């Protein structure tokens, strides 16, 4: 399986709507699912740390 295949970013639900981006896809601004996942994890950990230390 190639890196390109391991990626839901290829999905384009609005192809027919004429929207196109030269980075990411119409579903996400990221190049790969993993990049988006890691950023989500980083955000979640930052929120958890904020809640833990501030509440």
């Amino acid at each position: 399986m190639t890196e390109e295949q391991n990626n839901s970013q290829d999905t384009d639900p609005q192809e027919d709507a004429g929207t196109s981006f030269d980075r990411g896809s119409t579903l996400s601004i990221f190049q790969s699912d993993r990049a988006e996942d890691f950023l989500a994890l980083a955000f979640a950990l930052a929120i958890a740390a904020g809640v833990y230390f501030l509440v």
Partner: protein
Amino acid sequence: MIYTKKHPALLIMGIIFIAFAYMADAGLLGGLIGYLKSSKYVGEMVAMGYAFGALGVIVGSWHMFGKHDEGNLDYYLSTIAGAFFILIVAMSIRWYLAPWIAVLSKAMGPVMGAKYLHQVMGLNYIVLGILAGIFIVNVPGIPKWAENGVRLSRLGLKTGVILLGTLYSLGELASLGKLSAVMVGFFVLGSVAMVLWLGKRRDIPNSMGGVLAAGMGVCGVSAAVATAPVVQAKAVEIAYTIGTILIWGVGCMFLFPIVGHLLDLGYIQFGAWAGTGILNSAQVAGAALAYQPDGIETLKVAEIFNITRVLFLPIIVLWLALWYVRREENAATEQVNVGKVIIEKFPIFVLGFILMFVLSSTGVFAPAQHYKGKYFDNDISADKMLTAEQMATLTAEAPKLQRSDRQDALASLIANRKIMTIDEETALRGVYNAKILSKDANKVLKSATKVVRHTAPMIGKFRQWITLLFAFGLTGLGMQITFSAMKQAGGQPLVIGGIVGTTKAVLSLIVILMFVKETI
């Protein structure tokens, strides 16, 4: 390609956020907030309003007056306008539209037990957000300046799913009865298998089948969102899954209590059935309360079955990842390397969900046995215990109780001046819900249960974050659903969902009638 548009929209939205934060803080919105009964959102309106307002004004000024060159700065900062566009729609719904619909619905009076029409129909900020998004993309359209940022919605959803893990704990899982784990496990896995099988027979896309299987097997929004990247599902397929579950749940909320009464099911039997057969948490609670409006025993059992289902989420995601690779990419010609698929396909954010669940189970955020941040602790100070006068009020009314568990719980409360166990607390909550005693006695009972039932402040904050992230993500998701995409998906998901849901409801009822008595 330069993504940033020289447009004042973000600057204006930033000013709007600040203006509303100021008005809410200064009490200028008091009349409106009072009418909408939305005072619980004032803190959110002020904090978010000022924080996002400041960000909007700073980045919006750069959008409007700055120099934009092609590159990462332009690409990522241009998304802020779209994110604010989603936020302003989502928060308008959460703070104003959804409370207004609730006010109108409550004015009509309850339609099912203690439930109002908007609760029965599931017309909350989540559903309204998706509908608003669908309306915006199909009627006025997404403004050009917002297009890049609308693609941030999935990031919000993934962050929300990770934080969802903080609401549950291993202690709660360990306290679940064996039967609930076995039964829910069987029906979760069975529903997933059946949707996949029917999807193949009815020739729906694998992505639709995968996301519908997770939604029908585990539970609506979280499962659909968690599985979507694994099976490369489109926004419309996630929305169809959520829609199917909600429509199915509305029917169940009416039918389940009727069937339950016809078969004279016990509270535990009905709770187990509703918790297994109905997928949406709010609708499970609705059916349980409709069946037993005068107590919470049914609701409690239904909730136990409900939480068990959520904890199957990682297993289902893994299964669907393997299934999808087998069906879509290797096309049965190549042997699937399970380890490789797990490493390459298993979503990191689902691991994040597990990580938060583990952290939550250690008691970092709330006592280890908590469930959604609520826990029982009767180590209270003397001034919170019953006074002699309150004890006399309860003693005088004790003969009104018929059920032995309620009599025992009340006797224990009077003897000890406080509630001693979680079971006694459950029984006494049932007493005041049933309004058996006088107003004064009910008041005493309510306060006695309140002092031993605590809410962890950290979990409360996590719930707030999860709500905001889901509101943001699902409104943005709605903005990616065009009418033509809905037409392409057709009515098959609803048909498959109906078949699987009915089969599960009938089979689980048979199992419950055969094996579930009054104890689990």
